[in-house]
């Protein structure tokens, strides 16, 4: 179902001609658009870094974050970049 977003974008045909403003878009259609965008962005990654289907479709946003923390070792990198200042050394 989400593939219709790509077709709509490629053909430059609105998903529904009756909808002219963003806030009018039914939440079901906007869900499909957001999901399509999310899938497109995940597909930019190499296959082994992409979250599994179970997380993409049934996981929470925290689980998706955890997945990326794990595959990109993000938490460790963030700590490595921190500059630790010892308050005792500050006059």
């Amino acid at each position, binding site marked *: 179902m989400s593939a219709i977003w790509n077709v709509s974008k490629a053909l430059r045909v609105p998903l529904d001609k009756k909808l002219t403003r963003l806030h009018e878009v039914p*939440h079901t259609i906007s869900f499909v658009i957001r*999901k399509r965008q999310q899938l497109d962005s995940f597909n930019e990654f190499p296959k082994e870094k992409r979250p599994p289907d179970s997380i993409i479709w049934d996981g929470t946003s925290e689980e998706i974050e955890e997945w990326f923390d794990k595959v990109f070792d993000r938490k460790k990198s963030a700590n490595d970049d921190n500059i630790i200042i010892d308050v005792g050394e500050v006059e």
Partner: protein
Amino acid sequence: MPVEKNDVDIERLFSWSKETIITGLKGKDIKVYLRLLGDADLNRARVMALRRSAEFRKALKDPDSNERIAFIPYKEELSKDILVESIVALSLRDLTQQSLREVVVKPPKDPDSDASTEELEQFQKEVDEWPKKRESIVREKIDVLANKRREELRTQTEDILYDTYLSQLIKELCEQELSKRFKEYCLFFGTYADKKFTQRFFESFDTFDNLPTEVKDRLIMEYSFLEVESEDLKK
């Protein structure tokens, strides 16, 4: 019957509005226009429903409130066996969630692009059978978890059981309240007096809330025809 993978009814996504007649409102038949909410109104409905369920929870926790007397049985009315079975029944929602998280049934692997017709047939068969297979495994898991919960509860005193029952019952009643109110707010925000969806039909939520139950139920049913289940949207 749910649609299966490769068998998605895209058209439903575009049936997001309809007109319907409210019968018997102030003795008349009135035409109204229903539409699926956009994200902003959907979120508003969710917030309003959460506020209502919070009020309800507060009332249920107050031992002197009318809600407490109406919805929660006294300890003396419940035997140990009834307490245990009630808690297990009230835990089913959580147990189902837990089972869905823990049970991993891998969906059929997509066939190669040069797959033979026979391989494609086999794949389609597996796709068609997958939801039932998953449901059956999830059900078995729920039974195992429920039995384990039952055994744990039997070792508890009646006082502890009643406290557990109380907290589970309040949780369940508030879930139901949230769900009911959410649907009602969706209706309140999604019912219009005109075809172009510019003028809301109900002036206030109270106007909607004071409708006869059968009218509200009818509107909620009509609105539900517009909804597409999130499971179907995922396909």
